[in-house]
Structure formats: C-alpha cells, structure tokens
C-alpha cells in the first residue's frame, strides 16, 4: 500500500445556495447533467495537504473556518468542488460526537454498524467487541439506544470503537475536549501509544496544547483558505498570537482602554537551551521563557513571570527589577526579555507560565500573556518541584 494516505491538491468546496424551490429545481437539472451545483457559497479553497503513514497533523482555525468541511472531504463524505483529493487506506473518522453512530441503535449495535461502515468483516468485529465495550466503560448503557446517552458517553464509545478498529488514518474533531478528566487522560495515553506505534493522526482542535503535544505538523485554515502550514509549534504560536492580537484589538476598541499609552506584551514563547521552540520539556531540562514587550514612553519596562500548575496552584514567580534586570531594547518602544530556568526542577505535569508587564517602577501591572507547557519524565518524587536535597548519615537526637 502506498505511503501517502491522503493527498489534497488545490481542494475547494462550494456549498449550493438552496433558498427557494426553484433553485433546487435548477440544481437538480444541473446535477443530472453532470455539471455540479450552480450557485454556491465557498467554504474551502486552495487547500494542499499531504499526510503520510506515521504523520500526526493538526488542523487549527476559528469556528466556521472550514475545518469540518476539510475533514469531510478527507473522509470521503463530501465531494470537493475543485482540485483533487486522493485517499488510500481505511479512514476512521471520529468527527463530531460519535460519527458513524445511529441514534436509534444501541451502543452494541452501533459497534457493529461502525465497523461495517469501516469495511470490517463480521468475524474481525466480533473479536473486538469485548475490548471496545471495556475501553468505553459505560456499563449496562451499552445495550441502550445511543440517543439516551450523554455526550460524554457517546464520545467514550466513539473513541473506543475508533481505537479498536485500528484505521489507517484516525481523524478526531474536538473529541478530546469532551469526556471527563480521567477519560481524556486515557485517550491521550492511547493516542501517544498509537502514534508511537506508527499510527497516523489528523487532529482538529482548538487546544494548542493538544496540537503541540500530539502533532508534528499543523495547518491553519482561515476563512476557508490555508493561512499557515508548518511545524505544530510554529503554527500553534502564530495562531495564539493571532488570537492575542484579536483580543487586543477588541480591547483597544473599548473606550476604557487607551491603546498605545500603556505597556503591553506582544508575545511570549518557550525555548529549549538550544534556542528551539518547544512546549514539552523533559524533567530537568533547561527552560527559557522569551518575550517581547512594548513600552509607550520608551522606558525599560519591568517584567514579572509566574509559573502555575495546570490546576492553578502557584509554583513560583519573580520580578525583573528585583534582580536588577533590564530588558534588551530592540527598537523604539520595543523590548525583548528572556528568563532561563537552568535544569528546571519542575516535576512532570502540565504547567502554565505567565508573563506580566509593569511600568518601569514595577508598581502597576498592565498586561498578561500566558502559555502552557508540559514537563515529561518519570520519577517517584511528588509535589511541585524537586528541592535540592541530600540524604546524610543519621544520629540520635541531641
């Protein structure tokens, strides 16, 4: 089988405008004549994408950007209006909550239905039903119609089916956002193992954390057109920056905030010691926080960083002027700063690092940006950080 699972070249999709009965009649004539739909609205245009076996690709974009349409084209549900879309192999789509599920079927019937939809034989499925039921872990609900399920249960079942049927390409659309914490962890663990074993993933997500941890490459779709394709890290950073700017523009539009008269942060990002951008660090690795701040009076701004664990527990924070640090002036009113955490002693887990900009005296806080990162590694230590310590010989109390 070919190594390329999906190849899209200049793919575009128009949806027909079907306001009136007459336009539907014209549509019928033109479809029967093999000409395609006549009047239309463009949902997607000029998309190039190649997914090879073993790839993990993220698709990011705002609501309505065309992500779901793109996935439908890859899954073969929608016929592209332009360009060519070639897919090889078995595409297991986990589009919205439990796609390939029929609401009137019971959970168990849906397992059979989805596997038949994926083209599996009866025997192949029967071998896997028990594994699916136990992964989904929804108890006796498995024999009730899906329409009585909570959305979390549907996702559990959908994920269980998709994992057991081992499709050549797994597509997930915001699936990880649903389900409780422990199930999400189970899914993440499974996905990491799946990718480690050479599986191929197309992940649609609003969570840059998921995109960065699971994907190597990413594509940002903006208003139906590709805006940026590259490494997951670059795309995620640009995408987040875009949103930062968008909210900042919104903030500026509000009369209370006077744009350009207060210090603010342009961006922050994390790097390894080598200068490579990253969001995942190994236990004990150097972590470098870098950022750009803007100071309207062109005086060196004061900066503050703070690290919190994902559950909000503060770990540590410190102010630049207390250390006598002055940010580097890059241009008029534009300052770059960096903080290095040598052999960062954070224990494995999810963290957020926040940077704040203050006026030069360090009294008033003006702007905040935060970014998430993950520390990976294996240790039996517990708590937040590894404190410097040594075990020494004991003796009797004095």
């Amino acid at each position, binding site marked *: 089988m070919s190594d390329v699972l999906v190849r899209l070249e200049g793919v575009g999709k128009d949806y027909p405008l079907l306001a009136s009965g007459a336009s539907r009649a014209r549509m019928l004539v033109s479809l029967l004549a093999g000409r395609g739909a006549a009047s239309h609205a463009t949902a997607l245009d000029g998309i190039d994408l190649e997914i090879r076996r073993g790839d993990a690709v993220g698709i990011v974009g705002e609501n309505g950007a065309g992500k779901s349409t793109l996935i439908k084209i890859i899954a073969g549900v929608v016929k592209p209006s332009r360009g060519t879309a070639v897919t090889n192999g078995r595409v297991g789509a986990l589009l919205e909550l439990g796609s390939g599920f*029929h609401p*009137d079927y019971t959970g168990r019937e849906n397992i059979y239905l989805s596997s038949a939809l994926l*083209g599996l034989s009866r025997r192949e499925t029967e071998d896997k039903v028990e594994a699916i039921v136990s992964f989904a872990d929804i108890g006796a609900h498995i024999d009730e119609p899906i329409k009585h399920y909570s959305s979390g249960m549907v996702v559990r079942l959908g994920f269980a089916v998709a994992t057991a049927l081992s499709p050549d390409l797994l597509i997930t659309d915001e699936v990880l956002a649903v389900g409780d914490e422990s199930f999400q962890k189970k899914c993440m663990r499974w996905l990491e193992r799946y990718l480690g074993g050479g599986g191929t993933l197309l992940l649609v997500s609003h969570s840059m954390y998921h995109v960065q941890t699971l994907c190597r490459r990413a594509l940002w779709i903006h208003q139906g057109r590709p805006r940026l394709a590259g490494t997951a890290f670059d795309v995620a950073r640009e995408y987040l920056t875009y949103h930062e700017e968008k909210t900042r523009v919104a903030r500026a539009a509000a009369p209370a905030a006077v744009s350009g008269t207060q210090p603010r942060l342009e961006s922050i990002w994390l790097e390894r010691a080598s200068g490579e951008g990253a969001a995942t660090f190994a236990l004990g690795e150097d972590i470098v926080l870098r950022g750009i701040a803007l100071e309207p009076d062109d005086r060196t701004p004061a900066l503050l960083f703070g690290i919190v664990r994902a559950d909000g527990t503060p770990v540590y924070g410190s102010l630049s002027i207390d250390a006598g640090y002055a940010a580097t002036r890059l241009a008029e009113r534009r300052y770059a700063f960096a903080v290095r955490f040598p052999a960062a002693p954070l224990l494995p887990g999810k963290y957020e690092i926040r940077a704040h900009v203050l006026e030069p005296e360090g009294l008033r806080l003006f702007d905040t940006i935060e970014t998430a990162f993950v520390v990976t590694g294996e240790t039996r230590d517990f708590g937040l950080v590894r404190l410097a310590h040594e075990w020494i010989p004991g003796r009797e109390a004095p």
Partner: protein
Amino acid sequence: MPAPPGHSWRWLLANFLKREVSSRYTGSMGGILWALASPLVQLALYALVFGVLLRAPADALGGWRFPAFLAIALWPWLMFGDSVKRAMDCIPANTSLIRKVAFPHELLIVAAVGGTFFIHLLGWAAVLVALRLWGEPVSFAGLLLALPLLAAQFAFTLGVGAFLAALQVVLRDVEQAVGLALTVVFYATPIVYPLALIPAPYRDWLALNPLAYVVTRYRDLLSGAGGWQPGDIGVMVASLATLAAGLWVFRRLSPWFEDLL
C-alpha cells in the same frame, strides 16, 4: 464506491437489512405480528366495501372468492407501496450517517426495499396458506412460477424507490406528490376490482402499468392456470431498465446528499 481493500460492503448491507426488519417492531409487544395485522385490517375493510357492499361480480374474479382475489394482489401491492415509502424515508432517517461517514448510499435503499419485501413476503405466504386451508384453489407450484415475476417486481420497486429517494433530497415537493401518486396507482392497479370491469380502451392503458400486469399474473399463476407468457419477459426487461435508470439517477445525485440534507 469501492470497498476498502480486502473488504466488501456485504456485511454493512446485512446490518442495514437486519435493522430495517427489526427496528419497525422492536419495543412493541406484538413484534412482527403487526406486520401481518395492518394488511389484514386493510384486507378486511376492502373485502367489506368492495366485496360485500359494492359486490364485485363473482364471474370476473377468475374462480376466486373475493377475499382471496383481493389478498393475492394486496400483499404484492404493499411490497411496492411500502417499499417506496420506506425508501423515501431512509435517506433523511440516516442523515447522521450520511453526513459523517462515506459509504454507498444505495445500500440504504436496498435495505429499505429488501426489508419491506421480506416482511410482506412472510405475510403473503401466511395468507396463501390460510386461503388454501379455507378451500381456495391456491397452487403452490404456481407460486414457484410466480417467483421470477416477484423478482422483477423487486427490481422495478428498487428502481422506483432509488429514483424517488434521490429526487426527494433535492426537491422537497416529491414526498407530498408521491403520497398522492401512490393512492392513484393503488386504484389504477386492479387490486380491489377485476381488470374486466374496466371498459376495453382504458383497460389497455391500465395494462401498461407493470404492477397491473404482475398482480393479474399472480392471480393466474396461483390458480394453477398456465405457465409463463411472452409478456413476462417484457415485464422483466422493463423492470431491469427501471432499476438501471433509477440507480443511474441515484448515483448521479448521491455524492451531493451531504450538501443538500
């Protein structure tokens, strides 16, 4: 649509078929008996109105008593009429699948029509046995001879069902129109009356209706009178042509279902 390598869509069709048959009656206490009950009530009503009140002429019934005359045509009619209705329902009913998973949509139509034929075949067989016990001259050898015609009727129904189901996705008016049309076709088919009652020139027009042809032939064959006729071949060819045309239209439109639903 080709199945993934090494696989076929046969099991998916089996799934749809099983579901089509079981879904209608699961959860009801009567189960599949309802499949028999509804036609039986229709049979009783039509027999009362057309057999007793309006008195169909006994000499035109080809040797059958009126309820038997009616029953032999009623179940095949339901195979057609119910199948068309189910075929038109099955695309909207499976919107959630069509919008998210790629599979050959015609399997839904095959399942809708196949499931309906299966249910009404059971009913028909039961009724034919009952008629025989009641003393009607039902010939089971004739039933075997009727099977190719039944297959032709299946192909014809599948073609019509596929055509209308696809058309309905694009044009919302189809469903309303078909409801009316089925009533008209029911009375344009000699089910509740013998064809002999129709004046000669109109009778020839009615004979163009393939359903009129097959129900008349079922009555002939089941009475044990005669074997195949040249017209049977004509009906089979016409049915296959209907099937081909219906599937052609369906396949032209089905890639666009997701856009239109």
